[in-house]
């Protein structure tokens, strides 16, 4: 565990970048430091590998003060990823990734073999090995940056706004990839960002810092969204924290209706029977994949026109997706009903906004009870 123990960073001109910050950073989890510019998040990160020395306080790594080992030994045991990757433009991709192993004295052959292995791990085509950084896209460069940080298999990974400079689509890809890699490797990651959405998506725990380098709140993202510590945190989370909080509620408990789901080859009797169950019917293809909605009286048995069906919005997978996805599907659907599908994309039922709304209220209730129980009330 990394323990930041009442650390202050004061510059010679009197500016205080970090003010008596204490954080216990859990092992094998992603801890995100988030806040507006000037909140000292990068300074805090850089104090962990001693690129910045604290003015007061100490930082302990597994109970030992980080100043007790040679600085370059410390740094080589911590992967570091920065914005724009900071690749060595004069070295090939493979040699960039092999940097730290080489510093640690591995043979060139072994370091390169390890680098090749990491290229695969971060999803880089091995054909890129002999290229130079200028020949790669921003997203690819950032992947190289992550691979380089992982090369010597350090227990700790420090990431300083690594995905800020790439476009939103690439950023989402990189975030998903990081979560996947983290699932496999279980590193202790400290991740700095100014993007609260990124913090909530990636963080196991999120530390919100305010200008002047003081800690505003340190909590898991769901708790941050449900119980912001003060108006600053609430404001920083943005206007739609209620909706975003739904990401943390599973859609498992939603009661699905199968009545309104009819296959495209349904006969007249079946259509009539199902029409009674809901104001709209969801028509599926012969494999059970949703095609679209229709009012029952517009459907003629044996002659259902796919083109005239209403769009069914984005379906959700019960259990895998959150209530937020389910609600989003219902909101996007012109009928106000969301479509639930299984892993193969086959419709397993439909659910109305009203039912989702009840599930949300129930979920809030459970969280509140849980909190009350914890507080001993």
């Amino acid at each position, binding site marked *: 565990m990394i323990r930041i123990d009442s650390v202050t960073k004061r510059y010679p001109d009197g500016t205080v970048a970090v003010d008596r910050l204490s954080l216990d950073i859990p092992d094998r989890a992603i801890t995100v430091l988030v806040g507006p510019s000037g909140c000292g998040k990068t300074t805090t990160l850089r104090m962990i590998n001693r690129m910045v020395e604290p003015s007061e306080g100490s930082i302990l790594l597994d109970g030992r003060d980080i100043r007790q080992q040679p600085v370059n030994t410390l740094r080589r045991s911590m992967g570091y990823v920065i914005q724009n990757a900071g690749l060595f433009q004069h070295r090939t991709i493979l040699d960039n990734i092999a940097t730290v192993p080489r510093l640690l004295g591995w043979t060139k052959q072994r370091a390169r073999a390890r680098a090749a292995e990491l290229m695969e791990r971060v999803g880089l085509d091995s054909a890129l090995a002999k290229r130079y950084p200028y020949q790669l896209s921003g997203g690819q460069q950032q992947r190289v940056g992550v691979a380089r940080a992982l090369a010597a298999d350090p227990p700790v990974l*420090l990431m300083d706004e690594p995905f800020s400079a790439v476009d939103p689509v690439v950023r989402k890809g990189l975030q998903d990839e990081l979560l996947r890699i983290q699932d496999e490797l279980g590193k202790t990651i400290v991740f700095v960002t100014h993007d609260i959405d990124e913090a909530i998506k990636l963080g196991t725990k999120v530390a919100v810092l305010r200008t002047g380098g003081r800690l505003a709140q340190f909590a898991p993202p769901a708790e941050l969204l449900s119980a912001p510590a003060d108006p600053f945190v609430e404001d920083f989370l943005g206007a739609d924290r209620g909706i975003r909080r739904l990401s943390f509620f599973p859609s498992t408990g939603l009661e699905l209706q199968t009545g309104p789901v009819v296959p495209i080859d349904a006969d007249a009797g079946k259509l009539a029977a199902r029409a009674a169950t809901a104001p709209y019917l969801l028509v599926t293809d012969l494999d059970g994949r949703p095609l679209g909605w229709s009012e029952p009286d517009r459907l003629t048995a044996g002659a259902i026109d796919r083109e005239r069906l209403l769009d069914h919005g984005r379906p959700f997978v019960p259990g895998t997706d959150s209530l937020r996805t389910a609600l989003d599907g219902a909101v996007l659907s012109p009928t106000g009903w969301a479509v639930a599908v299984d892993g193969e994309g086959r419709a397993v039922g439909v659910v109305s906004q009203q039912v989702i709304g009840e599930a949300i209220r129930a979920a809030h209730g459970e969280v509140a009870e849980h909190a009350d129980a914890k507080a001993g009330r």
Partner: protein
Amino acid sequence: MSGFFDLPSDLQHSYAGLIGLHLREALLPVLAGLLVSLPIAQLCVRFRWIYPPVLGITTVLYAIPSLAFFVVLIDYFGQSETTVMIPLALYSLVVLVPAIVDGVRSVPPETLAAAQAMGFGAVRRYFQVQLPIAVPAIIAGLRVATVSSISLVSVGMLIGNQGALGNMLYDAQTYHRPALAVNSVLTIAVLGILADAALVLVRLLLTPWMPRKGATR
């Protein structure tokens, strides 16, 4: 009638011999200048405040006429090649020091931060990161210094036949053979162009990592 490449015997060299001599007198000072510039430039990068005075000194050195240097240096080194080469080496500093400083400073801050964070010591960082990335700027400086040195060697003729190809200019006057002067000027120009081209080639070989114009991904 003597041929274009027949040289008067007082030059003491064949045409090819003069070219070899000329290149030696021109290139050794640039090499020496480079070896001196590297540590000076590193000091200027490390301690920013010494850069302006260093630039001032190199500019003043460049402004001193070579004749003035010769007057002083002849006392120590006689009418020798060394006397010609020392001022040339000093002149090269005015180009090389700023070229190296700019080159080293052009290394992106995030690259330096990454190197520091990965555990590069200062020495390793200089030789493995800063210097290689500064190569294009250093070679750009070397090209200017080399071409200017090749043309400046000629003044060596003033201290008794130490100007290599430049000595042909003197003989052109003495023997009323203007062709010798034409030959001297053309040869020096061609040497300059070839040396420049050679440096461009060296840069291409040293920097496969630079984006090439017109190259695609």
